[in-house]
């Protein structure tokens, strides 16, 4: 008989989330800016996924026979972003760079999010000394500025994309712990958790089936915005020499390489940097839009027209 009770769904997770998303879509449709952000982000993901397959030229290989002829050409129909000092098409390199950025941010997130989630859940749910310990460690990390810490770790681990990813993951998980823990503190006081406990539902089940789904929403906004921040940070790392190494066409790396030929061959640094700007802008706009959607006050405001 107890088994039957355990299968009862106590949490409000399933149905209201669907309702929320339908509402969210409505709101997004009404806000052209958020729409644009969504398009940019989706575009970035798509390009990141299929980029290397649709590049007009090979982004990595150097055709030594053509170098002298093709090096450092300004933008043209053939080469919309110009060419680099090895004659490689910069448009293809920038396109390929999308995949690099995508992989880096995905990698960082796939480490930082689970770690942050688990630690935040545990700290928030159990409280007491476990909470104290976790929060103190988190605070230590948070008391250092992110980029500086990333540079320090990256330099110690050695140059290269892999160490950059590792360094960024280390820098990023603490902020997630805080956010998740705050949300858990709110959720665990709610009545349906008490009910679950009273019915003898196991702690692990409570944590994963009830608290977790309800604590995720603020994390969503943060993650979206952070995708952009990670791309900025990793490109900064690549710019100063840590992070991506040649011939990897990482955007920050490309901007750094282009500095050698500055200002005459301006296109070299310009387009990769522009790519960073647009991509990060997309994530920021989308993140902002998401935050507005999830804020009930804003939604009410949206319903009212302005009357002068």
């Amino acid at each position, binding site marked *: 008989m107890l088994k039957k009770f355990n299968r009862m769904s106590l949490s409000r997770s399933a149905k209201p989330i669907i309702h929320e998303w339908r509402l969210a879509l409505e709101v997004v449709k009404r806000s052209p800016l958020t729409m644009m952000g969504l398009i940019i982000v989706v575009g970035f993901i798509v390009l990141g996924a299929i980029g290397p397959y649709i590049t007009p030229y090979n982004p990595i290989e150097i055709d030594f026979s053509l170098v002298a002829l093709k090096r450092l050409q300004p933008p043209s129909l053939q080469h919309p972003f110009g060419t680099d000092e090895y004659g490689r098409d910069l448009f293809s390199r920038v396109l390929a760079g999308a995949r690099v950025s995508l992989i880096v941010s995905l990698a960082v997130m796939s480490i930082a999010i689970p770690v942050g989630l688990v630690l935040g859940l545990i700290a928030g749910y159990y409280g007491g000394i476990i909470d104290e310990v976790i929060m103190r460690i988190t605070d230590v990390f948070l008391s250092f500025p992110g980029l500086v810490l990333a540079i320090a770790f990256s330099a110690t681990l050695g140059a290269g994309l892999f160490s950059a990813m590792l360094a960024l993951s280390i820098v990023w998980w603490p902020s997630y712990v805080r956010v998740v823990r705050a949300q858990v503190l709110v959720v665990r006081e709610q009545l349906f958790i008490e009910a679950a406990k009273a019915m003898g539902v196991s702690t692990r089940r409570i944590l994963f089936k009830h608290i977790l789904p309800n604590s995720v929403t603020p994390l969503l906004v943060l993650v979206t915005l952070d995708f952009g921040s990670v791309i900025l940070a990793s490109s900064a790392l690549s710019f100063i020499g840590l992070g991506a190494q040649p011939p990897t066409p990482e955007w920050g790396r490309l901007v750094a390489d282009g500095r050698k030929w500055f200002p005459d061959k301006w296109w070299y640094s310009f387009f990769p940097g522009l790519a960073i700007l647009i991509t990060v802008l997309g994530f920021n706009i989308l993140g902002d839009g998401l935050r507005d959607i999830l804020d009930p006050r804003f939604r009410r405001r949206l319903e009212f*027209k302005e*009357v*002068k």
Partner: protein
Amino acid sequence: MHSSNLLEVKDLRVYFYTYAGVVKAVDGVSFSVRRGEILCVVGETGCGKSVMSRAITRMVKPPGKIVSGEVLFNGIDLLKLPEKELKKIRGREISYIYQDPGSVLDPLYTAGFHVAETVLTHSSSMKFSEAWEKAIRIFREVLIPDPEAKAKSYPHELSGGMKQRVVIATAIANTPKLVIADEPTTALDVTVQAQVMELIKSLRDKYSSSVMLITHNLGVVAEVCDRVVVMYAGKIVEAAFIEELFTNPLHPYTQGLLEAVPNPLRKIERLRSIHGSVPNMIDLPKGCRFNPRCPYAFKLCNEEPVLMEYSKDHLVSCWLYRR
């Protein structure tokens, strides 16, 4: 028109313009407040009573708009007064008491400061120290214990009841003629409620101010009011003196309200609730707004009724009482 009318509201309309449609929150409300009386405005949440109370001093913000009507305060139409003059009336002639004292006091300023500030705003030559002294005096009058210390306290250091007394103190600081109290006791404990109600009664008895008390709690109404105005869906459905209303409620809505409240003196088997729910304020039914829920509805109810005089000082808006 009686000269004993301190405030006369005539056909006030306040509409809210939303993407979903126009919400006619206050749709043609007329009533008056006499000198030295406590008038209660009763109605369910959403009937427009709060909006109406704020419209009186033109404190309606977009997307709400005061569409038409007159608000005569001592004969002057407040809706047509320039902002500068209106500011002189707010806080001095007409003051407000809000529902949640916790959110109404600025957390960064002391309790005494709020009162002193209100006093200074409406005096031309007073010094801050004088205003502070006055604040302490008023704290004593509203029965705040240890007023000197409490005046220096910040809102988060005070209890709910204490905070509401501070709010009341700011309201009476300049001896206003009219105090508009919007659900002043709803957020408070029952014991504190009683004390605050005593304070409100003293506003009328000691200071000869009139009070417009907005509430949905009939117990409060019975305790304190001289006259009652019943609102439903943006309109006034009945207005009468308190005894008259309780002994002879005319409008079916009023009857329903009274039957839904337990009466310790009468033995009733069960409380009757009013069938149905408050109408959607955008898609209002044609005719009488209470029609869908009214047990006595008949053919005429498809036309919108007018507020008529049933007997002296007893007005009702219902076709049941047509002459």
